[in-house]
């Protein structure tokens, strides 16, 4: 029996007549009742436009919003609340850095270094900056085990590098990249570091001081918060010298006909009415996550990863991408293909057994090109997955080739 079943009602339903086996957690997680209830409670009893009203309800809403910010600050080990900017998601956080920092401070001939495995959200914005500024994108290529070697890091991050964009955990390979080592190298070269932690924060403790990145982005929805709330952490001295990203209400100090001055951090980067309900949900998700505990999350996911990788190795015609040897320091993400069967057919066949996996390029087309594949399937775990889920997945996968008239 799944010990988390009561908290996640969505997992207790049937899909195509079978028990739902949700293995698309790298795309989005499910939400537990305490998070759903916290959002419900906010809208029932505390909703008003924050920072604006002079009446008690608005003061309450403001308090809830700022309490959420403090909770995030503690959660990620940031120095001050004003270093925590609320956004819609990691993509918006990364775009904020690209549009604001990148467009203001990168110059012609500068280099932006990034692994080829980056999610499009930490790649396409840098393409824009590079094109607009005449800067150059320099890619780091992972080795066969999905790792970035010291030689690769040293070769690609040089004195020409002005910015390094890197995921903490790859959403396709599951690799955990050595952000600290990269940041030390980048800082020695005079570059700033932008870490995409969308795939790490839900699964492992991320402390921004230890991580060493200047900017860090993550999404609430991958860690049980509602969709539409995300976070950008930035070092205060950098955020202060950056121009605003979006302009409008709430982010100004004085507005004249021809000119404006802007509010101090963090409001400078939070134009318009913010997603207070989402922030309240994120705070509840942090509480829930810390209740479960990262030790337990890591232990469960690593057991599932080991068990599933061992199971996959027993199934003929299954190819796994990314490292399968160093399993201790690896995210619970498994990208794979079934030889002779397109990933979309694999996903449809698994779906008929109630199993939800992802199929496609996972917003990482340059990586697909590097791996010489068109697309892959991906199963990704969270702590509420069970060995029964892994068994159902492996059993269904054994039948895939048969459906397409191919030998097992």
């Amino acid at each position: 029996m799944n010990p988390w079943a009561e908290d996640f009602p969505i997992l207790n339903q049937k899909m195509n007549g079978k028990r739902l086996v949700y293995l698309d957690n790298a795309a989005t997680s499910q939400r537990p009742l305490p998070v759903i209830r916290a959002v419900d409670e906010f809208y029932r009893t505390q909703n008003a436009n924050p920072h604006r009203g002079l009446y008690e309800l608005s003061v309450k809403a403001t308090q809830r919003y700022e309490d959420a910010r403090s909770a995030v600050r503690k959660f990620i080990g940031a120095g001050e609340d004003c270093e925590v900017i609320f956004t819609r998601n990691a993509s918006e956080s990364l775009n904020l850095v690209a549009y604001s920092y990148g467009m203001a401070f990168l110059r012609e001939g500068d280099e932006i270094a990034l692994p080829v495995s980056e999610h499009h959200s930490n790649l396409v914005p840098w393409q824009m900056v590079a094109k607009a500024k005449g800067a150059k994108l320099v890619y780091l290529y992972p080795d066969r085990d999905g790792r970035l070697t010291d030689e690769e890091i040293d070769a690609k991050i040089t004195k020409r590098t002005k910015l390094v964009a890197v995921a903490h955990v790859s959403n396709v390979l599951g690799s955990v990249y050595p952000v600290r080592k990269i940041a030390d190298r980048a800082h020695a070269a005079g570059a700033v570091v932008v870490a995409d932690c969308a795939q790490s924060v839900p699964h492992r403790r991320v402390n921004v001081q230890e991580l060493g990145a200047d900017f860090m982005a993550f999404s609430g929805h991958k860690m049980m918060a509602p969709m539409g709330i995300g976070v950008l952490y930035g070092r205060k001295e950098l955020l202060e010298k950056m121009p605003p990203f979006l302009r409008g209400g709430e982010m100004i100090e004085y507005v004249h006909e021809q000119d404006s001055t802007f509010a101090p951090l963090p409001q400078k980067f939070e134009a318009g009415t913010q997603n207070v309900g989402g922030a309240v949900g994120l705070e509840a998700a942090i509480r829930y996550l810390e209740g479960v505990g990262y030790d337990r999350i890591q232990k469960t996911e690593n057991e599932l990863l080991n068990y599933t990788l061992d199971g996959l190795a027993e199934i003929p015609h299954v190819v796994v991408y990314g490292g399968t040897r160093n399993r201790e320091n690896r995210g619970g993400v498994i990208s794979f293909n079934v030889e002779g069967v397109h990933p979309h057919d694999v996903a449809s066949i698994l779906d008929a057994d109630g199993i939800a996996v992802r199929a496609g390029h996972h917003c990482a087309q340059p990586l697909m090109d590097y791996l010489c594949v068109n697309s892959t399937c991906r199963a990704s775990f969270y702590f509420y997955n069970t060995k029964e889920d892994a068994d159902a997945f492996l059993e269904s996968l054994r039948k895939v080739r048969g459906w397409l008239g191919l030998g097992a």
Partner: protein
Amino acid sequence: MELNEIYTQILTEHNNSRRNKHPIENPTISLKGVNPSCGDEITLQLRVRAGVIEDAGFTGVGCAISQASASIMIDLIKGKTTKEALRLANLFFGMIKGEIKDEGRLEELDEAVALKDISHMPARVKCAVLGWHTLENAIEGKKE
């Protein structure tokens, strides 16, 4: 959704067959069709003389549904006029969208009727129509 209604013998045979999946000689039209969201990509080649599709073939990569659908389409349109081929394509679109259910009307789609149940799989509709949309664009002279 029942898998045996989708992954039928007709579909798997066409998917595993190379009969229509190859470049043709002296094509008069060659057009690429892409589903950007899933990365499926085919190139359809036609040799059209005096309004008649003398030969057709396709190359590319994609799921079983997109590949089988393109192969079945080629069996159906070879020897037909381009006008007739367009009419069949529209009949196919009607079937996949679930708008045309009448079996009598669908009869002339022949083996393509095996893809009828894709209308119950919204996520796979774009796979089934990739080859047919490419055909439509090729005949109407649209670029990729």
